[in-house]
């Protein structure tokens, strides 16, 4: 007697269209493409900074090209989406128990959002944006 185990069909390249939650998972995953590409931009920027004032000015000018503006806008959206989903996940990833009770999940995520806002404002202030 041959054994025929149930094999559920799973299209390897289109499976995530089956469920909205799979799509949300994938949309979060693809933000890593933009973060990775932006890391390349940061390393190039460091190289230009090390090469001297003229090279750095050239880098700043290159940043102003339309392609660069579109690219950075997409990266910004991806990074904010990554951050929001990451902070939303913290309450599931590291629940805090005090005595018998768990600290409310929204408090944990909210604390992360607050810390994010403060850190971002401090960085913007130190960079002289305002």
């Amino acid at each position, binding site marked *: 007697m041959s054994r025929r185990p149930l094999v559920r069909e799973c299209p390897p390249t289109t499976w995530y269209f089956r469920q909205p939650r799979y799509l949300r998972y994938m949309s979060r995953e693809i933000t890593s493409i933009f973060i990775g590409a932006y890391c390349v931009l940061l390393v190039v920027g460091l190289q230009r*900074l090390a090469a001297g004032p003229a090279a750095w000015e050239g880098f700043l000018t290159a940043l102003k090209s339309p392609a660069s503006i579109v690219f950075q806008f997409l990266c910004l959206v991806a990074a904010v989406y990554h951050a929001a989903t990451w902070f939303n996940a913290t309450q599931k990833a590291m629940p805090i128990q005090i005595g018998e009770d768990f600290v409310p999940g929204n408090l944990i995520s909210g604390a992360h959002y607050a810390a994010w806002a403060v850190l971002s404002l401090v960085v913007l202030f130190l960079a002289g944006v305002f």
Partner: protein
Amino acid sequence: MAKSHKPVVWFPFAAGGTVIAFCIPVIILLTFLAALGHVPPGLSYEKLHAFAASGIGKLVLFGVIALSAWSSAHRLRCTCYDFGLRADTLVATVLYVAAIVGSIAAALFLMRI
């Protein structure tokens, strides 16, 4: 007990995810402002060079770049697999090598500043 190399991959991944969430959006915002023509004073050559020349500045820049690069390399590896690219060993090798090369390059450039 079987030894696993996974913690080595996982720790920088988790640390990188946190660094990306907290630091990368505001960094992109700074360069985006520069791209729109409002170069923040902190991105002028003198200010940024002075920051990158300090010990703490080197540490911050290297930490942010290396951890973000490693974390996104690890996530890209999973993304490739999810999109149906099943040559995992090849993908993992290419992406991790890229992250390591990027981190070393960042360190070398920082040492030159």
